[in-house]
């Protein structure tokens, strides 16, 4: 559960090519801690992270990752030394401020319902959960008292305020408002009655006064000190001096007042006291309201407004009268979208005047600190929620580099090598060692914006759930560009597609297609330049995209044809040019797609029938027709996973040569789909009977709907993780009977080409490389085996190399947030207890029931990629090497060589040492030659 900042292996010299970046996610709560010691801000995020950030730089002091399934509902700093977080599941945890260690933990309740956390004036903690109040001692987490205000029934939209020794709580019970007064020390409560029943549309509590808006356009206020609350009604129209058609009380808390927003876009700060209600301030345009802070006995609050996309205005109102005490205009990055949350803090400037700083959370999840009219630091927290990635090649190196640059490079190169040589010969001083370390880490060569010979330098374009795109450089993990597309932030499912990957026109930039679609039946497409991040074109789609097919056809400008399938299974072709239409018409009869429906328990296959009229929207629209369907028995099987091969996977050969020189032909059907179904889970706890749970694995041809293979595993349970590569599938599930995780492998071979004569092959009379069609049936042989896996799997992936010659590694993301590289040879169905010498020679490992986990196979070393969600592997140009990018809350990048780096020297290879050795050898040869000649001459004279 917990992790804090520790040793980072990526700073060690031996792991030069790995990069680990820590993030926290979108901030939901923040508490400043500036009174003493280090200035810091404690934050809680959507990703269930509690972190302490350095207020001066934004760096993470410490970070604790809590259960992702339980969002954090509240965060407070108690006693000036504990950060207390309230999780949705009712866990109250207290962390020590300086180092983030867990001090105490209390579980108040177990139902996952939203609650609020307050800090009482006595420095104790109060949790208000739907009408139940818990008060917990902040010193040790002991429950002081609890009271159930409504006896089991629920209180919705609760609001709470303190005044003296009393706690006031208000909330909806049904449609009417219920008011309570609680004694803060004992928990005894009284239900307050009102002079007339209240059915307000919105209400707010503030310092023992409540204000509510009723349906007749009146604002109703009342003091909560008395047993029977007397209500005062004021018409909004007379209060605001203008007719108001609709208004709303904002839940933002203002001590002694409340905030009213009207449909005119204006905001009114209202003062509430015994006399009634009065307008204190009016602000034009909707602002974002910060928390209130105590300042010289009264309160201060800041209001943020966007002037335009580049500037925001920060206004601070304070004092009893809510007078504007400070106003600043801050220039911000327009690439961050609107401000969503503000947290304010006051400080004393060097000239003893008061200053304010605000922490703002942007629409793009970014976090920034504004102080004295400028942005002090900002964090790109969108990177904690990566949803899809693509890689782009960097541009080719331009010829004609200036002489000065070369000289500089040469000097740097020489310096580096001299240092390296010294280090090798153990002559380097500590200073030189650190210089060398710095040189290695910030090698200018690594971060160049051009393509390198080995293909290690690339851009990883990541799409985040906030709708912001980033390009990360593989050399140092730095952000090359970022682009916020506001339209995408409201879409549910986001995907990236390679629209244009130039091969012929290498000097042109690659373009990615970003697709977002939401359940309300609309979609959004954007075309983004992958090298510069500029948005080339955007398109609002009047349909939601179910499937997007990147067809294996490109037009003359190397744009890939994409087919977007909408809800009605109509296919929309992009790009919408005549050329793409004519290309598509030629290819149309070979295009198929399938839609697997988890709810209905079926997979349906379609093909493209004919072009139809696009209607008013225009574009190229095609009708599809259903050609097959596979139905799974609903009561015994639900679809758990469905996977195909990666479209751009390179396979070197279709032949697998065995130790006895037999040849097996791999069945490399790209349209083969792996489907795993599991027995539906009974919702009752402990209902899973190990005898009755099954996992059924299918191999289905997605063109014809033919089931190529079916295998069932008894006592198996999901979740199922699958990796599909070449002609094999590896899937992982839980064995209920053995209480262990299992990994199974299926390898598919085409046996119809067997028995070919050598002579025929010699003469070239084989047709194994003719185009493959799913409609010509093959004689298949499927080999499978299962092994125990000693860890729990979060996600699985596999390595891809440039030509597919190098062996494969399965990349397993474990529950411990680490990435393990498991050699595919351990998952060979041909492993047997006693392999023949031939098989041994081939490299078949003797059978063992479990898969081994070696300490060396941890790609992440000691680093942990918190909440690991996905692992992406990208081939480098060097055949032996594969780039691995893992993402969760953190980002991690490294390289792996499944069969060792057989085609390159290490980066650290000391060329200087080699050169010196050669020179020394040549000199030694020359000297000894002269010496021997002399000696010979002397001999002859004797």
């Amino acid at each position, binding site marked *: 559960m917990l992790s804090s900042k520790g040793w980072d292996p990526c700073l060690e010299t031996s792991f030069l090519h790995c990069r680990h970046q820590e993030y926290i996610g979108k901030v939901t709560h923040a508490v400043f801690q500036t009174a003493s010691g280090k200035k810091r801000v404690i934050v809680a995020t959507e990703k269930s992270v509690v972190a302490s950030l350095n207020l001066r730089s934004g760096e993470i002091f410490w970070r604790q990752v809590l259960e992702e399934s339980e969002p954090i509902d509240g965060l407070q700093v108690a006693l000036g030394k504990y950060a207390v977080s309230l999780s949705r599941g009712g866990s109250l945890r207290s962390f020590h401020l300086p180092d983030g260690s867990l001090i105490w933990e209390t579980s108040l309740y177990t139902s996952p319902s939203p609650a609020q956390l307050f800090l009482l004036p006595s420095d104790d903690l109060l949790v208000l959960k739907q009408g139940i109040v818990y008060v917990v001692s902040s010193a040790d987490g002991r429950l002081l008292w609890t009271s159930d205000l409504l006896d089991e029934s629920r209180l919705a939209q609760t609001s709470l305020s303190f005044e003296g020794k009393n706690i006031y709580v208000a909330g909806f019970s049904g449609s009417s408002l219920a008011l309570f007064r609680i004694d803060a020390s004992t928990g005894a409560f009284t239900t307050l009655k009102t002079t007339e029943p209240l059915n307000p549309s919105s209400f707010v509590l503030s310092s023992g006064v409540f204000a509510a808006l009723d349906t007749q356009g009146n604002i109703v206020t009342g003091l909560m000190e008395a047993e029977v609350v007397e209500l005062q009604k004021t018409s909004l129209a007379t209060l605001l001096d203008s007719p108001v058609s609709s208004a709303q009380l904002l839940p933002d808390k203002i001590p002694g007042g409340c905030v009213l927003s009207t449909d005119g876009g204006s905001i009114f700060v209202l003062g509430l006291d015994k006399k009634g209600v009065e307008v204190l301030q009016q602000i034009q345009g909707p602002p974002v309201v910060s928390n209130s802070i105590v300042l010289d006995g009264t309160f201060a609050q800041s209001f943020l407004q966007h002037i335009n996309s580049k500037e925001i205005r920060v206004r601070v109102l304070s004092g009893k009268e809510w007078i504007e005490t400070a106003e600043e205009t801050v220039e911000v990055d327009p690439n961050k979208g609107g401000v969503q949350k503000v947290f304010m803090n006051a400080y004393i400037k060097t000239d003893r005047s008061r200053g304010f700083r605000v922490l703002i959370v942007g629409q793009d999840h970014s976090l920034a600190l504004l102080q004295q009219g400028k942005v002090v630091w900002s964090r790109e927290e969108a990177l904690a929620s990566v949803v899809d990635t693509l890689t782009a090649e960097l541009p080719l190196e331009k010829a004609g580099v200036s002489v000065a640059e070369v000289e500089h490079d040469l000097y740097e190169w020489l310096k580096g090598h001299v240092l390296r040589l010294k280090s090798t010969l153990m002559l380097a001083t500590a200073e030189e060692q650190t210089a060398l370390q710095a040189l290695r880490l910030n090698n200018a060569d690594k971060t160049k914006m051009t393509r390198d010979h080995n293909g290690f330098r690339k851009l990883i374009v990541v799409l985040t759930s906030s709708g912001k795109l980033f390009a990360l450089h593989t050399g140092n993990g730095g952000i090359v560009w970022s682009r916020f597309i506001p339209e995408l932030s409201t879409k549910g499912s986001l995907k990236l597609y390679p629209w244009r990957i130039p091969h012929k026109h290498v000097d042109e930039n690659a373009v990615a297609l970003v697709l977002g679609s939401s359940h309300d039946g609309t979609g959004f497409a954007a075309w983004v330049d992958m090298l510069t991040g500029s948005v080339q074109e955007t398109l609002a789609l009047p349909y939601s995209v*179910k*499937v997007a*097919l*990147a*067809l*294996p056809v490109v037009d003359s400008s190397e744009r890939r044809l994409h087919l977007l399938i909408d809800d009605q299974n109509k296919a929309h072709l992009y790009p919408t040019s005549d050329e793409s239409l004519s290309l598509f018409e030629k*290819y149309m009869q*070979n*295009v*198929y*797609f*399938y*839609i*697997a*429906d*988890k*709810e209905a328990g079926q*997979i349906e*296959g379609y093909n493209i029938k004919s072009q139809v009229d696009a209607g008013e929207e225009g574009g190229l629209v095609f009708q599809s027709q259903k050609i097959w369907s596979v139905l799974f028995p609903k009561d015994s099987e639900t*679809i758990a*996973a*469905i996977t*195909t091969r990666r*479209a751009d996977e390179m*396979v*070197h*050969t*279709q*032949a697998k*040569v*065995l130790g006895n*020189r*037999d*040849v097996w032909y*791999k069945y*490399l*059907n*790209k*349209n083969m*789909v792996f489907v795993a179904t599991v027995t539906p889970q009974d919702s009752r706890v402990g209902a899973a009977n190990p005898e009755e749970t099954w996992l059924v694995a299918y191999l289905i041809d*997605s*063109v014809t709907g033919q089931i190529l293979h079916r295998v069932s595993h008894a006592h198996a349970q999901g979740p199922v993780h699958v990796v599909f590569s070449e002609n094999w599938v590896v899937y992982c599930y839980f064995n209920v009977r053995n209480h262990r995780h299992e990994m199974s492998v299926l390898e598919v071979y085409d046996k119809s080409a067997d028995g*070919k*004569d*050598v002579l025929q*092959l*010699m003469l070239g009379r*084989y047709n*194994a*490389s*003719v*185009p*493959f*069609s*799913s*409609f010509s049936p093959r004689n298949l042989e499927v080999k499978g085996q299962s092994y125990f896996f000693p860890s729990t799997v979060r996600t699985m992936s596999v390595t891809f190399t440039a030509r597919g010659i190098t062996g494969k590694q399965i990349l397993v993301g474990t529950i411990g947030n680490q990435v393990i590289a498991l050699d595919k040879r351990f998952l060979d169905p041909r492993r047997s207890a006693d392999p023949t010498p031939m098989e041994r*020679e081939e490299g078949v490992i003797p059978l063992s029931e479990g898969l081994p986990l070696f300490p060396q196979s941890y790609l992440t070393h000691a680093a942990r990629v918190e909440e690991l969600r996905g692992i992406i592997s990208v081939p480098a140009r060097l055949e032996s090497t594969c780039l691995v990018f893992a993402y969760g809350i953190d980002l991690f990048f490294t390289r792996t060589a499944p069969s060792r780096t057989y085609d390159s020297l290490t980066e650290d290879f000391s060329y200087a040492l080699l050169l010196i050795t050669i020179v020394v050898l040549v000199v030694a040869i020359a000297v000894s030659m002269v010496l021997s000649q002399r000696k010979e001459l002397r001999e002859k004279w004797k």
Partner: protein
Amino acid sequence: MERGSKARKWAIDFGDGASSREVADPPGYSRGASSEIEDASAARQKEKVEASWKQQKAWEIAQAPFRNLFMMGFMMWMAGNTVHLFSIGITFSALWQPISALQGIGKVFEPYKDARTDVLMPKLLFIAMNLVALGMGLWKLNSLGLLPTHASDWVSSLPPPQMVEFSGGVLSS
């Protein structure tokens, strides 16, 4: 050199005749008379002996590879059937020796080639023997798996087939 001069002190050369000249010839003995008479018959004899010796030698040379065969077989057996430096070296020398011997067959039998000696049969035997050795080498090469006699040797880099159809899809939940 010094050693050489020392050795010379003790060396007596009987062949130079210098010492025998100091003693007079026996009476009636004339140096040179007997040699003239015997010369002709001796020469004929010598020629005959030489011819049979040449024939014998030619046969011997023709059979020489036979002894080598056992040696080679033993070495091959020792080398084993796994491909490594030693076995490769042995195999290639086993292949190279017969080939080079066959190439230089003219030179081998040249000293024995004249009108009297028949070198054809020894030559044929020599060729046969070397072919046997070559065969053994090839057999070894095959048992090492270095001869393309299996289907796998011809299709091992067969590229994957092109797909006619294209299909894609999704799991919607």
